[in-house]
């Protein structure tokens, strides 16, 4: 690990002045960054420790929303009373992530900012990975792509975003508040992520000089219910093969409104807006009708060499998540 200067930020303003530099990285929980530094994937000359900034740790219940400070820990959010009662999909997404120890260390902001990567990214031997070295190529395209994306694939990167809570937040139309020395801006989470292209393989639209200050989630209607379903080969401590966050509003047995987002299938959380519209008026107990409603989303699905199973798996996971969200056994 290359040595670095460590600067403890005393305020958001102080942190913003410090990060306007390509070789300076913020450190929050450190559970992602320290791995990259140990493996030589990144070598910052300076780290800015933002943990002393108290306001960034707050979880605040507001009249029509809940606000998570960017440094709120995954475990604290998951065990928060209001989250448990009203935002089950967020709680379930968080508790299915990583391990208890990591959840005590990792921040929600850092979780959203995880690199989209596949195992080639941190291989011990230097294998072509555009995320590791821009322009190096993508090994997964021609080799082992079993865990890769089925939506939004391109030649730059076919990995999937590792965050579970990002998928839940995508389904709930969360917004992210960003701050820089130039001012603040609010970005819908569904617009925060981007596909890699010729100009950049960056996962987000976050600018070099910006800091995430909070994530805001609108309060659901009292009768709206939600669930997160994570499918993976191990029952814990593993990324999703496919996951689905579903939030439904029922009128009797009929789906009046649905929000659906998928994880493990794309470079970022993948929202099914067309499928959501088609789900209106569908009977919750009618699995065939639910399948028919979301089938259109899969017209654009593209498998790689070894992940063809993901298409059907994603379909079934989505149906099941919707059923569970609606209270089906």
């Amino acid at each position, binding site marked *: 690990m290359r*040595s670095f200067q460590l600067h403890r930020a005393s305020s958001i303003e102080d942190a913003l002045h410090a990060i306007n530099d390509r070789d300076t990285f913020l450190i929050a929980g450190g559970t992602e960054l320290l791995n990259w530094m140990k493996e030589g994937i990144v070598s910052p000359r300076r780290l800015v420790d933002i943990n002393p900034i108290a306001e960034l740790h707050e979880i605040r219940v507001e009249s029509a929303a809940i606000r998570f400070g960017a440094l709120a820990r995954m475990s604290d959010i998951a065990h928060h009373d209001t989250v448990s009662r009203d935002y089950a999909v967020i709680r379930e997404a968080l508790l299915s992530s990583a391990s208890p120890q990591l959840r005590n260390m990792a921040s929600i902001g850092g979780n959203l900012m995880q690199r989209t990567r596949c195992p080639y990214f941190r291989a011990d031997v230097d294998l072509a990975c555009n995320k590791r070295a821009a322009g190096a190529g993508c090994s997964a395209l021609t080799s082992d792509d079993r865990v890769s994306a089925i939506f939004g694939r391109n030649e730059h990167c076919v990995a999937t975003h590792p965050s579970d809570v990002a998928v839940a937040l995508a389904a709930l139309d969360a917004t992210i508040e960003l701050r820089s020395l130039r001012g603040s801006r609010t970005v819908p989470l569904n617009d925060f992520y981007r596909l890699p292209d010729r100009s950049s393989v960056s996962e987000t639209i976050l600018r070099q000089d910006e800091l995430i200050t909070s994530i805001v989630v609108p309060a659901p209607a009292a009768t709206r219910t939600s669930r997160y379903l994570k499918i993976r080969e191990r029952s814990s401590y593993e990324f999703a093969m496919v996951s689905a966050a579903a939030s439904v509003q029922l009128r009797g047995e009929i789906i009046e409104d649905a929000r659906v987002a998928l994880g493990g299938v794309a470079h970022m959380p993948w929202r099914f807006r067309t499928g959501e519209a088609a789900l209106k008026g569908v009977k919750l107990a009618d699995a065939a009708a639910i399948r028919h409603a979301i089938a259109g989303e899969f017209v654009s699905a593209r498998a790689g060499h070894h992940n063809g199973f993901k298409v059907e798996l994603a379909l079934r996971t989505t149906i099941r998540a919707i059923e569970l969200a609606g209270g089906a056994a």
Partner: protein
Amino acid sequence: MPTDLFSRRELIELGLATSAVSLVPGAALAASEESGPAATPGPQHTSDRVVRSFTINGTAYKVEIDVRTTLLDVLRERLGLTGTKLGCDRGECGACTVHIDDQPMLSCLVLAAMSEGRKITTIEGLARNGSLHPVQTAFIEHDAFQCGFCTSGQIMSAVACVRERRARSDAEIRERMSGNLCRCGAYPQILAAVRASMSLEPA
């Protein structure tokens, strides 16, 4: 080998104490604290050193360290608290689990330089006045280890599980303990030890 005079542990601790006293802080200590692959080629600039204070198992420590040093390395290499183990060094196995402000965390992914003022508890800090912690006793009674390498981390997670009292079933205990891997496969016995510690009825 003076096996009559010193146990192997005492011999290592003696060597550690001697080297800590006689070496000038700097190059030699920095070499033992670096982790990860070979250093970046090119001119090596002076590594930044910092001074940090924390409480470990009720004792106050003040150390001068390379800024890159993980909490795990401070515990094991600097302070001789070798009960906490280095497994994967990348946050995937849980062998390095300690409590920081009473919360289980992975010391291999914590920079000691970011732990100023923290209350740290390691496996060495569980026993009281020569008596084992009830969770330690339960691990012995339920044969919850084979090689013992993961055991420190398992016990640290188990103590938190028992303290939190959230787990109400075998499935929930397993989930709560899922951050600690056991290559020997002592999971059923570990589960039994935690269940007994929580006084839950047997499944």
